[in-house]
């Protein structure tokens, strides 16, 4: 089983990295691109087992450790 976790800065948090990428894209002619937010992507390998239990535990890990709820949101997918 594999877990895919995407962590992005919260909307209210200034994201200078995203802003820089957006400016660079515009500079290269990709003017159609609006706001850019740069986050993190994690892949976790898990032993096969109870999907729901795994999801609960990973959600807890995301909240406690892998993301900082003050500044970040996360999205968790299991496959």
């Amino acid at each position: 089983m594999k877990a895919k976790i995407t962590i992005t800065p919260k909307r209210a948090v200034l994201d200078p990295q995203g802003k820089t990428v957006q400016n660079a894209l515009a500079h290269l002619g990709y003017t159609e691109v609006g706001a850019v937010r740069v986050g993190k992507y994690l892949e976790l390998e898990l032993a096969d087992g109870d999907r729901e239990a795994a999801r609960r535990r990973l959600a807890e890990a995301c909240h406690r450790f892998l993301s900082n709820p003050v500044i970040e949101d996360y999205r968790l997918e299991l496959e």
Partner: protein
Amino acid sequence: MRFAILQFPASNCDQDCLHAVRLLGHQADYVWHKATSLGDADAVVIPGGFSYGDYLRCGAIARFSPVMQAVQRFADEGGLVLGICNGFQILCEAGLLPGALIRNRSLQFRCEQVFLKTAAHDAPFTEAIPPDHVLRIPIAHGEGCYFADEPTLAALETHRQILWQYCDAGGAVTEAANPNGSLRNIAGICNQARNVAGLMPHPDRASETLLGSADGRRIFESMAQCWARRRAA
């Protein structure tokens, strides 16, 4: 007075903190990150550096270390805890201080002298700082932009938890004086109980005129003054 200086594997200002505190005539000992007790320390300093490499987020891994559980208990009992730079990041991650420190707005690491206005003189970390005295203390960080949501910022102001703000040489809190994009120019804060504080600038690097400034001593002196008063009481 006895200071405990925490040592994570990639702390790199641990020696600087020990040096600065000892210069003031206090005792200081290192406490290893795997330790479960702080011994008989009267105050704790969490020094700068990169704790465990800081790969996920600064301070994210350090907050789960055994020694941080001891710091949590120490703080709950009212002990003085000061986090400098990475130490500030760890305290925020651990929830001992509100808010978070994110990437500098410039996206670059910044090492330079800054000026600090002391916004509240009634904390154990500021009481020995003369009123209207602008501190000159260096910063050295890549992720020192203080962020908190509006309600948190409002609460910080209501409870006078903002201790230091970036300012210009004359003490004016201006956008130009803000080195990293911190909201409200926040350089350092304390908790509501006022016994835990964190700041991004390095008082440990400003404790000798030989190094250009001795303003940082005022912060350690404040802690010693508060501790002596508490003990006398």
